[in-house]
């Protein structure tokens, strides 16, 4: 495989796919007949002489720390030259992101299909459209966001200018997760671009195809000096000095990232999965509720940070709910979900095995329970008679397993939720507004959604992020922009009226102080306080 001949990404990409299809392995990797080493594209781009593909056909997945340092240096130099400051540059890059998603929709769907067996619908709706929305929202609002915000003035600053200027942080590091590999890499990237940063993106190793696709496509659409995709090696890279680290993933990894970032005094945003509770009240439409929950839990084979992880169901409706969920699953995926094109697979054997073990050790299987290791398939499973001490309630589950716990009333549900670590989302289903309000005000979580699931995490206008054990910081829309910007407060004073400031200079005299105290109380009455200081 040779280096790209044509500068057009479209043509080159098609050519690449042809080679990949036609060659039966040897052509692509490793050593050819003459014994000379052939180099795959990602290695070539990183300036390596030998290819690091491990086995036939597997993508070359490693960017070494030294190369990362080089990339970081390149990004930093470009950032310092101020290329990213211009609005036109940012808009062009954002438009390129949109273009990339539009032109390569099929490739993304393909890659996600290979990695997660993600149905086309889910790939498009929950990943691509989400990013596109985010990018377009940023394009439309960028001008407004970039403008300095004037803050209200007070007595002493009436003659001055008080404003907040958003300035980019520098080079940011974005670490994605495998649950939704495109979304978790590109949505933060949109924020980073909009705020004028350079970015190094590290997609999850588990979803190799998507990672390699991003690694291949991004250089063709985005600026080659500012934005880099690295493959693997997150562990070492995070030790380098970035200006912000944005991490999506699990808690233990998140803790490690936060500690590494602390050593270099780098601010972090962590979006961590937790066990999202879902309360179902006795007073609600069970059929609708079941449909909404089943959809939220079993899309992408349950591999989602925001899906409801367990149901806290009122005793009186448990049986009906389980029955309704069963019907929904039948309706969604047919009698054998394995055959359904709308049902995904587990990302790798490790997670498959963990989910399987937990499934078998907890509660009673009401629906599903079938596993096929060769396909990494776990049927949509509903567990009943689960107790708090079961392994499934102790660990984070990223699989299509939905434990149903029973509670006797709302108080018990609230107590149960508050006993656990703070989750990313709390869901509540009830027709009774009082119940909803109680759950909302008496529990704490990253976000709250009543009578539906997941939707709150898709909205550009709402901040999405965790609190406590489910992370820190938030993103989406304006909040992404703020996350990746520093709001510099600027006070531009005029040099006139020095006579007003004489009060503050030493020697401090009693009458100066009383004058200032008086002025201060005066302006407190007229809202805001005085700063003759």
């Amino acid at each position: 495989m040779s280096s790209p001949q044509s500068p057009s990404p479209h043509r080159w990409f098609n050519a690449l796919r042809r080679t990949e299809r036609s060659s039966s392995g040897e052509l692509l990797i490793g050593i050819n007949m003459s014994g000379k080493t052939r180099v795959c594209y990602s290695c070539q781009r990183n300036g390596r002489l030998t290819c690091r593909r491990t086995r036939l056909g597997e993508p070359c997945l490693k960017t070494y720390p030294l190369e990362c340092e080089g990339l970081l240096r390149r990004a930093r130099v470009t950032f310092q030259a101020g290329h990213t400051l211009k609005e036109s540059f940012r808009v062009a890059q954002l438009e390129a992101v949109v273009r990339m998603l539009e032109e390569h929709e099929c490739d993304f769907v393909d890659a996600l299909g290979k990695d997660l067996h993600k149905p086309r619908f889910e790939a498009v709706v929950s990943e691509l459209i989400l990013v596109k929305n985010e990018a377009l929202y940023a394009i439309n609002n960028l001008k407004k966001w970039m403008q300095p915000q004037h803050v209200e003035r007070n007595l002493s600053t009436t003659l001055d200018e008080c404003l907040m200027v958003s300035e980019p942080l520098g080079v940011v590091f974005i670490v994605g997760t495998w649950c939704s590999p495109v979304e978790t890499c590109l949505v933060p990237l949109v924020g980073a671009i909009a705020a004028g940063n350079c970015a190094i993106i590290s997609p999850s190793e588990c979803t190799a195809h998507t990672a390699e696709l991003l690694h291949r496509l991004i250089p063709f659409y985005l600026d080659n000096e500012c934005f880099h995709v690295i493959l693997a090696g997150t562990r070492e890279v995070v030790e380098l000095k970035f200006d912000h680290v944005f991490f999506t993933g699990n808690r233990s990894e998140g803790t490690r990232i936060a500690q590494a970032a602390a050593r270099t005094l780098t601010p972090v945003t962590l979006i961590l999965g937790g066990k999202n509770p879902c309360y179902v009240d006795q007073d609600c439409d069970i059929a609708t509720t079941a449909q909404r929950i089943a959809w939220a839990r079993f899309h992408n084979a349950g591999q989602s940070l925001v899906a409801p992880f367990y149901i806290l169901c009122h005793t009186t409706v448990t049986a009906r709910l389980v029955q309704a969920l069963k019907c929904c699953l039948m309706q969604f995926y047919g009698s054998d979900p394995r055959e359904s094109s709308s049902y995904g697979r587990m990302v790798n054997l490790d997670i498959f095995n963990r989910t399987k073990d937990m499934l078998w050790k907890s509660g009673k299987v009401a629906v599903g329970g079938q596993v096929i290791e060769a396909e990494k398939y776990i049927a949509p499973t509903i567990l009943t008679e689960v107790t708090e001490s079961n392994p499934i309630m102790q660990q984070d589950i990223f699989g299509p397993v939905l434990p149903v716990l029973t509670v006797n009333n709302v108080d018990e549900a609230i107590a149960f939720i508050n006993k656990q670590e703070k989750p990313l989302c709390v869901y509540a289903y009830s027709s009774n507004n009082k119940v909803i309000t109680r759950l909302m005000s008496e529990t704490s979580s990253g976000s709250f959604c009543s009578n539906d699931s997941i939707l709150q995490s898709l909205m550009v206008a709402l901040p999405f992020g965790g609190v406590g054990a489910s992370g820190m910081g938030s993103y989406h829309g304006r909040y992404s922009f703020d996350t990746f910007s520093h709001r510099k407060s600027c006070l531009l004073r005029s040099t006139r009226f020095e006579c007003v400031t004489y009060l503050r200079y030493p020697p401090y005299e009693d009458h100066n102080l009383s004058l200032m105290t008086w002025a201060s109380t005066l302006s407190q009455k007229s809202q805001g306080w005085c700063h003759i200081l």
Partner: protein
Amino acid sequence: MSREQLAVQRARKSFQTGKSKPLEYRIHQLKSLLRFITERRRDIADAVKKDLGKSANGTELFETLGLEGEIKLAIEKLAEWAAPRPVEKNLLTITDEVYVQPEPLGVVLIIGAWNYPWSVTLQPLVAAIAAGNAAIIKPSEVSSNSSKVMEELLPQYLDKDLFPVVTGGVSETQELLKQKFDHVFYTGSSTVGRIVMEAAARHLTPVTLELGGKSPCYIDKNCDISMACRRITWGKFVNCGQTCIAPDFVLCEPSIQSRVVEEIKKCIKEFYTENPETFEDYGRIINQHHFKRLMGLMEGSTVAVGGGSDESQCYIAPTVLQDVTGESKVMKEEIFGPLLPIITVSGVDEAIQFINEREKPLVLYVFSNDNKLIKRVIAETSSGALLANDCLVHFTVSALPFGGVGNSGMGCYHGLHGFNQLSHLRSCLIKQLNMEAFNNMRYPPHTDKKLGWARFFLLKQLNVGRLRRMALLAALAGLAAFVVQDSRISWRCWDERKIANDTGRSVWVEVCTEDRKARQSCFCIWRNIQQL
């Protein structure tokens, strides 16, 4: 169980009862805090006098006045801050309630600094109370008198369980940091900041770090130098230079260096008299350790003003060092004392370069009459804050966020910003269990038709810019066609040129309502045709 552990546990238990949440309770606590400051003014001033040698008036001016303002602002605005903040809806959520609700985080640890022992410890506390949190207050052990007074008196005014004061040195702080908090608010140095952040990361606790840094101060030659120096002198030597936002060094052109030195000398004399050592409004260095460090920093630089010292009372005179370079010892670390080095640069370009080569400072000062130059400095440098033509006062503007960036810290506080910092902004989406038909498109089995609908409903974010351009283009094309057609008529009958003009004008009138750009280009087309 250690004292620290016990305090945290009690605070958490107390927080979990939910008593800190009601707005009336928060306002009541804020009012008590205000009462504490007004009633115990004497005790506070005495403690600060013992710690830093500040005069009573100075203490009131720099510590409590700002604090009182902050509390009063919080009391007044709390209802507004804590209210749900609605956000714009999209097609899918048009019938629902969508808002952002600020909610308390839990137990906050506030670690204060010694340079303004009251202001930097209690201001975050104001934000913590306002946001409905419990808070452990850890005043700096270096300013021991203030910390003792705080420990004794504050519990008499605030809730003992929710807002305990824990005093102690390094080991106590370490013990505290082992506990799990929901937020840590630290004011102090970068080195300790790193340790605090690392300890917090173990529990996944978010931090706000208010660190220092070498804040540059650029004096342009095009400015009122005497006034600039007056303000710099005030900002630098207040509290004996031990202010995190004090200008650390001055950058100016060689041509004005001697004038700057002269003016500062004059101001020092005016503010602190001929002999600052005996003048009551001039402070002292906090301890022997810092005194020795500062004396060491002076090595290798030319003293232009001051330079005197007295180890027994930790006194260092207001000192100006001139002809300092970036490599001098005094430029290697944050000074935090009454030494003001002056560095000469050839102009604003070199100044910007000099600033950008170093870590991001907490604040950047610019003195100039030229607004363009100020705007340029804003755009080309990065710092926590930027203040033009004055020193320190941005700290007192509650509407401006106060905080650093990069090495000078993260997060910000003051007024609403402090409230937001110590709250969790929880996004809430309140839907009803109806309109299920609308949701059908998202449920499996997935079909192409469903995907089409989903695309329609989800992708409502149109690229307005591109759309506008396209509309413009279409309008232009239509107009051009129209005009060309008209002009064809005019070509056909040269002698009836006047009519063509009239039609042309009528086109122009029509276009008036269009975008200005379109109007201009259309006008151009019309003019070109005229010239034909």
